């Protein structure tokens, strides 16, 4: 083996020093690193509020914090996690870092817009955090009218404005990806040679570009109603509060696919790489991403089955909702089939990929309950829903993010982390997650509504289980901070392709050059051909 691997002399991290070289950079990789730091801060901040929620719910009585504080806690948790962590997580960090090298480009199509999107994210984040910390907001992350318009006396407008601003960051990222994937591919990189990670990001970008403006205009309407006294949703003035919900979910349901689609892309990369086998049914996996993105736009009213929509509309939306289930199922089956006759090994990223399979399956299948009309009447707005969307957004999206981060960490930093501790963390996350959220399905079917500060005594045992699991989960998320930071200085040097992966990004050095490749790559073979990887390794030895 090559035991004298060294960090290359020139790479994007040492191409310029000092704060200005970062803050004014146009390098997509440096921007990704700054996103990584920002969303990590947001993640632990949002996590802190989750700790508050679980502590409160450890006992049935509302005795840890006041009802008002509790409401502000879950709102802060939701707003931070959804808009400032999950939506930018994989696209803005991993997508930003990896899409150009994966398609053989030097940078994204619009590097300055990329940097602008980061600044917009920061402005939106600071705005929201300031509003959260100077009084908070108690409407829930859904901002339902008329409570948000006339009922609440908390900082609704500043927080909504922060979300509005951050939305532009998301739009610009999506716009950049779409143009980059269309126009910046290396010679020979045809659409069907793209890594599935890129396909997934293309689908994600579509949702970002098409959905986000609708939440923006919804927030504007909420803002003029609350701030200027216009009458748009207010029932006291002939307005329709249900209209707000329609507009809100037109974005916010597809927003779930902004979170999960990139994770599905990561999953495809991990499953293929760690079974050293081409993905089963490449085109089906690729197109199912697009199908999920498009179908995602026609199912939103399943959030509103008891909100006063017509029976006819409920039937239509229930029917359409099942359409999303099919491409999701197709993906899971294809990953399973990919493992067949592979050469499978269980490094940390693969542990996350296996965990993802389980959690995403449960999350997806429980979605069927909620799409089914008669069932959803009972389950709507209970902890069953809370458990379901955490399985998708935490069990799915964050597992994918963690798996991807561990997979590409050697590419990003050039060094390996501790395999031992990272495996422990992966197992802790999986076990802790299930301990936290499985009981919530049960307590949800019992009827415990969400956003409850106190609850009936007989539901305590299940809630205590959930709170206990959350502490394990928290540990599982904190551990990576330690060993990943440790690896920056002390980790083993990884080399260009430590996993024997097939993607174009592994052909270049780790960490890559600022312009990614020394020589512009030309692609002459299909994706996920491990024969080439093995041949190249042998050649090197």
């Amino acid at each position, binding site marked *: 083996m090559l035991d004298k691997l060294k960090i290359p002399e020139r790479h994007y991290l040492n191409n310029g020093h000092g704060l200005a070289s970062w803050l004014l950079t146009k390098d997509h990789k440096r921007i990704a690193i700054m996103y990584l730091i920002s969303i990590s801060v947001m993640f632990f901040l949002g996590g802190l509020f989750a700790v508050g929620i679980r502590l409160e719910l450890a006992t049935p009585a509302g005795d840890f914090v006041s009802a008002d504080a509790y409401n502000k806690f879950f709102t802060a948790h939701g707003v931070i996690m959804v808009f400032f962590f999950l939506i930018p997580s994989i696209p803005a960090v991993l997508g930003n870092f990896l899409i150009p090298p994966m398609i053989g480009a030097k940078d994204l199509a619009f590097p300055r817009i990329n940097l602008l999107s980061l600044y917009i994210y920061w402005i939106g984040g600071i705005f929201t955090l300031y509003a959260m910390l100077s009084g908070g907001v108690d409407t829930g992350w859904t901002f339902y009218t008329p409570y948000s318009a006339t009922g609440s006396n908390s900082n609704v407008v500043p927080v909504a404005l922060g979300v509005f601003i951050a939305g532009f960051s998301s739009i610009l990222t999506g716009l950049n990806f779409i143009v980059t994937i269309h126009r910046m591919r290396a010679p020979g990189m045809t659409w069907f040679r793209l890594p599935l990670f890129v396909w997934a990001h293309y689908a994600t970008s579509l949702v970002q570009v098409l959905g986000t403006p609708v939440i923006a205009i919804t927030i504007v309407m909420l803002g003029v109603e609350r701030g200027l006294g216009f009458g748009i949703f207010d029932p006291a003035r002939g307005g329709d509060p249900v209209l707000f919900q329609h507009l809100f979910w037109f974005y916010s349901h597809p927003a779930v696919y902004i979170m999960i689609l990139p994770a599905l892309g990561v999953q495809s990369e991990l499953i293929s790489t760690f079974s050293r086998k081409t993905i089963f049914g490449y085109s089906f996996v690729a197109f199912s991403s697009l199908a999920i993105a498009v179908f995602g736009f026609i199912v939103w009213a399943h959030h509103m089955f008891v909100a006063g929509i*017509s029976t006819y509309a409920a039937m239509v939306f229930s029917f359409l909702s099942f359409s999303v289930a099919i491409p999701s199922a197709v993906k899971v089956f294809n990953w399973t089939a990919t493992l067949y006759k592979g050469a499978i090994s269980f490094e940390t990223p693969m542990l996350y990929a296996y965990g993802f399979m389980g959690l995403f399956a449960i999350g997806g299948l429980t979605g069927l309950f909620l799409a089914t009309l008669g069932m959803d009447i009972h389950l709507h707005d209970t902890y069953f829903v809370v458990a379901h969307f955490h399985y998708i957004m935490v069990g799915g999206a964050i597992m994918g993010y963690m798996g991807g981060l561990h997979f590409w960490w050697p590419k990003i930093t050039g060094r390996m982390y501790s395999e031992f501790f990272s495996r422990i963390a992966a197992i802790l996350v999986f076990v802790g997650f299930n301990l936290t959220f499985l009981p919530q399905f049960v307590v949800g079917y019992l009827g415990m509504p969400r956003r409850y500060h106190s609850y009936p005594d007989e539901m305590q045992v299940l809630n205590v289980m959930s709170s206990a699991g959350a502490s394990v989960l928290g540990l599982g998320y904190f551990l990576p901070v330690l060993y990943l930071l440790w690896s920056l200085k002390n980790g083993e040097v990884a080399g260009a392709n430590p996993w024997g992966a097939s993607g174009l990004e592994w052909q270049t050095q780790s960490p890559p050059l600022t312009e990614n490749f020394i020589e512009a790559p030309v692609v002459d073979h299909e994706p996920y051909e491990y024969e080439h990887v093995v041949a190249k390794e042998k050649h090197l030895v």
Partner: protein
Amino acid sequence: MSGHVSPISLYLTIFMALMVLTGVTVFAAFVDLGQFNFLVAMIIAGFKASLVIWYFMHVKYQSKLTKLTVATGLFFLVILLGLFLVDYGSKALTGMPPLLN
């Protein structure tokens, strides 16, 4: 390299067409066509918008990708408005709109 340069006469023709259509839409609004008033107004507006997109915005001379992008925007706008009507249209049928307070 410099893209398609349209003749000035084309621009003037489009401009005149847009002005005439504006006149037509105002005129049509004063004729009682029942529910077709709205339809006529929207068809004229749609036609005017198409002229601007096709000639002023040069989509006629752009790549298929640009044309596809424009079509995508319209497609999702139709989804937005159409599925709103699935709910609000059926409420009108079954008689469920709001009670004015």
